[in-house]
């Protein structure tokens, strides 16, 4: 019985840790789609590049693991923001009012940037400098939880609160919420919504990079396909949570992370089958699409 509870707690907190990373990726995707109608397939490259830049910086500098990770992570985030803004300005903006071409361009960018990562850093995984204490465990209800899970969950919670505050209490947030509802009418009020597009891409890029860095802490390394694998789950989270909704993304990210963990353990245990987690996530997606095609939240940023 106690082993059952401790296993459940471990699975839950690990699921939340995964959900934290899904949320960071999904929130940017969701805002970009909600505001601009662009499904940004290049988002995975923001994740991977952000993580690699963070790793590369940690490799260049000295100091404790914590300092290297913080400095590297900050550089990764800054790089993600710059890359996001650049992609919007150079590739998305000229294709304004041509959403199909915009999506195709992001697919092309995803392939090109992915190849660039291979070209620069090779196919082998790079090891992140992980402070010892993140590998230690904390015992909760008999479960030994690796401490990095708390870092991932805590960072995502701070981002969630920050995003909600941005949307609710700032002028930019007001423009984003209005733009998600009706972009044309925002411009008809005299607001240059294109500035907001660039900003949202920069925010999305930095949050994706943050997810990449946290995944480096979670897995202990970064590899060239990290972004792609996180992006698939993030897309599912966005669909379940409702396009343009931060709250919906948070709820859906947690749901996907938990379902994946529980199914991977319990179903796999029961049927001796390792694909259960992914299949369960697909079932979750399918049932939300059937029951609430617009996702958990209506298309309003909040």
């Amino acid at each position, binding site marked *: 019985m106690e082993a059952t509870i401790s296993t459940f707690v471990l699975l839950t907190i690990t699921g939340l840790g995964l959900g934290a990373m899904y949320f960071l990726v999904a929130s940017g995707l969701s805002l970009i789609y909600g505001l601009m109608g662009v499904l940004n397939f290049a988002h995975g490259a923001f994740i991977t590049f952000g993580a690699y830049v963070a790793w590369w910086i940690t490799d260049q500098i000295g100091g404790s693991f914590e300092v290297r990770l913080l400095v590297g992570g900050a550089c990764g985030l800054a790089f993600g923001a710059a890359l996001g803004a650049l992609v919007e300005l150079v590739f998305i903006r000229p294709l304004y009012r041509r959403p199909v071409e915009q999506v195709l361009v992001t697919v092309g960018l995803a392939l090109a940037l992915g190849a660039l990562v291979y070209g620069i850093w090779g196919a082998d995984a790079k090891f992140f400098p992980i402070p010892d204490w993140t590998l230690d465990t904390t015992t909760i209800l008999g479960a030994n939880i690796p401490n990095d899970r708390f870092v991932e969950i805590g960072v995502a919670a701070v981002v969630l609160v920050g995003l909600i505050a941005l949307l609710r209490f700032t002028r930019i947030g*007001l*423009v984003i*919420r*209005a733009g998600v*509802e*009706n972009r*044309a*009418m*925002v*411009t*008809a*009020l*005299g*607001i*240059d*919504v294109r500035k907001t597009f660039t900003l949202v891409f920069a925010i999305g890029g930095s949050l994706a990079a943050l997810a990449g860095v946290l995944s480096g802490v979670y897995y202990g390394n970064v590899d060239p396909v990290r972004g792609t694998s996180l992006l698939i789950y993030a897309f599912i989270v966005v669909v379940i949570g409702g396009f343009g909704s931060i709250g919906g993304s948070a709820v859906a990210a947690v749901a996907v992370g938990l379902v994946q963990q529980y199914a991977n353990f319990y179903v796999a245990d029961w049927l001796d089958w390792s694909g259960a987690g992914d299949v369960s996530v697909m079932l979750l997606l399918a049932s939300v699409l059937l029951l609430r095609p617009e996702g958990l939240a*209506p298309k*309003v*940023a*909040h």
Partner: protein
Amino acid sequence: MSAVTALRVEDLHVYLGESHVLQGVSFSVAKGGVTALLGRNGVGKTTTLRALMGLVPRTRGTVEVQGENVTRLPTHAIVRRGVGYVPEDRDVFAGLTVEENLRLSERGGDGRYDLVYDLFPELRERGRQRAGTLSGGQQQMVAIARALLNDNSLLLVDEPTKGLAPLLVTEVAVALERAAELATTVLVEQNLGVAQRVAQHVVVLDGGRVVHEGTAAELFASPERVRELLGVHGGHN
């Protein structure tokens, strides 16, 4: 002429999909007062206003606001030249509160809230209510208020009384008269009673072109002419 011209439209052409909706619309609006833009259903009145706002692509033509050519400007830049727009479907932001809808439309930070709340006291009381939960009439008030909040020189107002109860129609008409004291107004209006009450000039569209321009008094004095141009019975409502 140009010193007193608030709006000049020359040979405006717009395609929506395959259909050539505006086929060379030309008219001028002198500074001050209300010009009613009239025409049968589906004749292109809304499209004309949207084209002036840069919200639909124009294939040909010139638009001048206060003598300045704004044809190639993006929508937000046209608005910043002092143009207020009240769209046909109101287009209030349903998820935003009334107060947020107004704050969003405020340009330059000194919105004329006194004026707006004086015209529509209800909006002050409902400041924290989500616009999506308002009645159609209240949403129309928000839409008009957004345009009046700034010191615009030109207002483009698309069927503000559509679907409203008679009492609200009167309230909106009063607001339009007040608005017209502050800015030149182009009003699309199917309720001819309202058009007759507030407009001094009329422009009538048909077949993608302007088929009549003149004073409101002259047009409404002739029920036959009204019927011929608009396909309806004119006169008082």
